[in-house]
């Protein structure tokens, strides 16, 4: 096996993202799949493997598309799942289990059309040991580590707010982003308090939308209309099903472990990276991601972002679609982070970089619960 012997040959999002009350979750999967398969110049008949999250699940999605697959992956561990699907698909293609794999995401996260009600199992560990204390989803749990980080490493409220400002600068360049008007640190700090220290503008959007990918072997690269995006390295890891049991509130072990796997497989170091996407459910997550992957030292990511290093024109472009904070966040955002990596490498992004030969995608699932990392490249290595 060689680095980059598997490619992303097709990639697309749903026609629209944002508020789509006339689409169900399954309908969004179908639309995204249709667009990605067409982007690869293929038909559903060409697909022999399928991966998607556990609900609606690969069996449902395959059947709805008229596909009878020989390989399935229903890994459903939150918003990073699609990065793991790419990793698993690459392994399956190398093993000869499948030849052309379709990975789909669709989620009516905002309009909640065709979505099963979410119920906390009060006998599960989170149900017994966290829910009784008044948790209500990610805003009340994903956010808890940051005060410890702020005290131990000196991150300021203004630096945290600047993460949202920087990403809005990217979103301003992207017509598909939900929010595009420039904001200042003062605007962020004046927005409604959601869960101190997090203000509304430091929390991700809640939207409807979908995306899909077609993954196949690089020896077929010439068969497709779009330039190939090589999968150079991949990693996956999990840490904790409960935020209270995160090993160290000032760093993400799972980001570091999955990142190390992906960089080692790709044979790259941070100096080789032109473009980074880090799942930004909340403003602190890119800070944890940049440090865990070694782009900056521990405690330096807040000032690094606030100094403009990840903004348009900066040396390390980060979340160039506007991210979950300004572009879109259906609930499982990882698919959109991959899509932007693919667009940058192909040269078709709204805020296209001059140089995007190597893109790193860092996904998060749950509240620092699970992680996938992809290293994508314009060329095999």
């Amino acid at each position, binding site marked *: 096996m060689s680095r980059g012997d598997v490619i992303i040959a097709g990639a697309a999002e749903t026609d629209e993202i944002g508020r789509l009350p006339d689409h169900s979750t399954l309908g969004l999967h179908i639309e995204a799949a249709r667009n990605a398969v067409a982007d690869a110049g293929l038909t559903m008949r060409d697909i022999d493997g399928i991966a998607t999250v556990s609900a609606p699940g690969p069996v449902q999605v395959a059947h709805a598309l008229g596909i009878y697959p020989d390989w399935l992956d229903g890994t459903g561990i939150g918003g990073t799942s699609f990065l793991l699907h790419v990793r698993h698909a690459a392994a399956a293609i190398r093993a000869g289990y499948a030849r052309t794999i379709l990975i789909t995401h669709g989620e009516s996260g905002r309009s909640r059309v065709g979505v099963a009600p979410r119920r906390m199992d009060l*006998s599960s560990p989170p149900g*017994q040991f966290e829910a009784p204390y008044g948790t209500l989803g990610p805003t009340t749990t994903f956010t808890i580590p940051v005060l*410890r980080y702020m005290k131990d490493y000196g991150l300021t409220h203004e630096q945290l707010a600047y993460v949202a400002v920087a990403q809005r600068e990217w979103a301003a360049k992207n017509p598909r982003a939900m929010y595009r008007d420039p904001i200042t640190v003062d605007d962020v700090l004046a927005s409604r308090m959601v869960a101190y220290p997090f203000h509304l503008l430091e929390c991700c959007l809640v939207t409807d939308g979908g995306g899909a990918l077609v993954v196949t072997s690089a020896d077929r690269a010439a068969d497709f209309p779009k330039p190939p995006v090589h999968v150079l390295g991949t990693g996956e890891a999990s840490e904790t099903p409960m935020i209270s049991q995160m090993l160290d509130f000032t760093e993400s072990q799972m980001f570091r472990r999955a990142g190390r796997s992906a960089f080692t497989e790709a044979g790259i170091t941070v100096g080789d990276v032109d473009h980074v996407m880090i799942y930004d459910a909340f403003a602190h997550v890119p800070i944890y991601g940049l440090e865990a992957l070694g782009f900056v030292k521990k405690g330096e990511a807040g000032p690094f972002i606030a100094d403009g290093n990840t903004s348009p024109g900066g040396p390390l472009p980060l979340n160039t679609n506007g991210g979950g904070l300004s572009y879109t966040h259906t609930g499982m955002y990882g698919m959109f982070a991959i899509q932007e990596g693919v667009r940058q490498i192909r040269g078709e992004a709204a805020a296209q970089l001059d140089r995007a030969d190597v893109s790193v995608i860092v996904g998060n699932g749950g509240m620092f619960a699970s992680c996938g990392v992809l290293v994508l490249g314009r060329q095999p290595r």
Partner: protein
Amino acid sequence: MPGKAVPIPTPETQPYWDGCAAGELRIQRCVDCGEPYFYPRPLCPSCGSGNVEWFTASGRATLYSYVINHRPGPGFEDDGPYAIAVVQLAEGPRMMTSLVGVPATPSALILDMPLQVTFEQRGGISLPVFAPAGEEGQ
């Protein structure tokens, strides 16, 4: 409107909840490697040994991190903004909890402040919560 969540014990966690009902914070430790741990489970997460035992923790803790939640969970609608905290027990393990006997404001909630366990009755369960040390318990 549903009230505040009432945990449903499982066989592995029942001794913990029995301890709370008796006014004690009972957690586990590994007999082989000596490591105390939380949440309750039958294998030591440090060394994998099944040779584990229950003991009564001191109930002393420090404030590790928290948020002050402005969008209330079920049953918390009338509480105003409230803290969801993670505390570090004197024995080492961490757990989520509520803070009582102290205003839910950044100026009152100082990281590393000493805390002491106390118990809140809810739906037949005794739920461990923490108060500033010296004001409750001790």
